[in-house]
């Protein structure tokens, strides 16, 4: 039969069916492998590692949850200053992050970098480094370096913001329209004028959007800085947790939600026409 088979079927329906079948078997194998890995994860994480008896069953969990529901409203006046601190930490951290990400973006943008072989990899590495270390770890490092207070929180938030802001900025610089730059060069503009009139107006809208987006994220980040020794709402959260005042904990979480909502409203303002 194989001898008599027409040459057409090599690209014909049979080949298509065989190809599809091969792909389907491949897909099933992939799904089976993924399910096996997930099943093993589930077994190891949920079944082996969890002490179900100690949890106290549904009644014990329900009892703990109930204590979270009695919200301790008497704490509200004590939350205003920490909430303001959190907001300020986020704002100053974002600002410092922007300032620090300027040189990183300059190094890491392929078309304006001072040296393709030295500064470009350095800039790229700094971007990855900033994003790969969690803000809690940055905060721990800075608490060790500058002591307790709002400052380590600001620095941690700033360091964590560098990666995202400078990555987007570098991409924006790489994607600019080169014509205005050439025009300014052609009429004799110096390096600064090229940057100020040729590059900055093109990337400014992207950068402002990115900064506001990052500020919004930084509010939630600075709300936890208190857990490792920087002030703000995180410190109140930590204290309420240590006192087992679960109603107060719920209130702090609600305060964070309110701050985020304020941040959302503010960040929508510039988008308005």
């Amino acid at each position: 039969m194989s001898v008599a088979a027409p040459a057409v079927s090599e690209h014909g329906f049979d080949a298509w069916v065989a190809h599809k079948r091969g792909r389907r078997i491949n897909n099933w194998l992939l799904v089976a492998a993924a399910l096996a890995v997930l099943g093993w994860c589930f077994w190891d994480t949920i079944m082996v590692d969890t002490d179900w008896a100690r949890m106290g069953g549904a009644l014990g969990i329900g009892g703990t949850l109930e204590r979270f529901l009695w919200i301790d409203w008497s704490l509200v006046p004590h939350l205003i200053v920490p909430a303001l601190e959190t907001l300020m930490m986020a704002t100053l951290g974002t600002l410092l992050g922007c300032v620090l990400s300027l040189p990183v973006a300059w190094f890491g943008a392929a078309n304006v970098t001072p040296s393709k072989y030295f500064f470009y990899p350095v800039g790229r590495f700094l971007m990855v480094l900033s994003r790969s270390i969690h803000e809690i770890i940055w905060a721990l490092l800075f608490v060790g370096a500058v002591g307790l207070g709002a400052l380590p929180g600001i620095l941690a938030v700033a360091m964590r913001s560098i990666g995202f802001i400078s990555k987007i900025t570098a991409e924006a610089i790489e994607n600019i329209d080169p014509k205005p730059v050439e025009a300014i060069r052609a009429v004799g503009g110096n390096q600064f004028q090229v940057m100020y009139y040729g590059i900055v107006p093109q990337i400014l809208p992207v950068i402002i959007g990115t900064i506001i987006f990052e500020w919004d994220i930084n509010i939630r980040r600075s709300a936890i800085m208190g857990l490792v020794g920087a002030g703000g709402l995180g410190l109140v959260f930590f204290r309420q947790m240590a006192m087992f005042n679960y109603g107060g904990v719920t209130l702090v979480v609600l305060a964070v939600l309110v701050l985020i909502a304020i941040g959302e409203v503010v960040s929508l303002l510039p988008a308005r026409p």
Partner: protein
Amino acid sequence: MTVVTAETVAAPRKSWSRYRHPEATIRFAVMLAVLAFLGWSIAFLNIDLSRVLGAFPRLAEILATRYFPPDLGYVTDADFIRSVIRTLEMSLLGGFLGVVCSIPLAWLAARNITIGRRIAYPFGRFAIMGSRSIHETIWTILFVTVLGFGMLAGTLALTVFCIGFAGKLFADELEAIDMGPVEAMRSVGASPLQVFQYAVLPQVRVAFTGIAIYTWDVAFRAATVVGFFGGGGMGWYLKRTTQQLESQRVAAILLVIIALVLLAEIGSGWLRRKIAAMR
């Protein structure tokens, strides 16, 4: 009444300025307000600017003197490697559960294809926004309080984190689909589930896969510190060594975290590029 001639109408403005009245005024007012808030913040938080500048040399000095020879023997210990594997497990499981839960929520929270604008849409949006607004470490602490220490709490915290993270991206993706197939399905009387399965899902399958991989990448980054608050995994080692001031061990753990996160990022980037090429 003056005679309107062609000259008076088309007369160009004599002086051109970059600063036109309403826009420029509003812009300067906003900038002024932001600057005032920044100044007030610096005063309110009592920030010594010389300490800000001194922080980086000081950090470098501390890293060089106390953290420098990283105790690599500590991180090649079998127990530590086991905790790294558990971190990976938590991120995989949390990412999977989060993605699975966030797809229906994103469906509710996408304005164009939601099943009900009155109840379902606000519910979906609120669920995603709420999961997003609270930081993953706070979720970890809450789950640890309710369920006790261990990987279950960490996994659930990562799940909630992934719901917030992936849900928003999924919803954005769903809102950008082509509505033609959806309307065609609706007009022949398909149920919402059928519309989702045959008109929506084929359009977003590739994008969703990419987002799911990216979610795992971010979840892994978060999973490295979940243990710091009792959620299981390598974060617990970080907490112990930090509190015992064993800086050289902390340095070794940090190096491991950076290396793993880099690997995860490279791996997920490669996978996402491959999947994008399949489109």
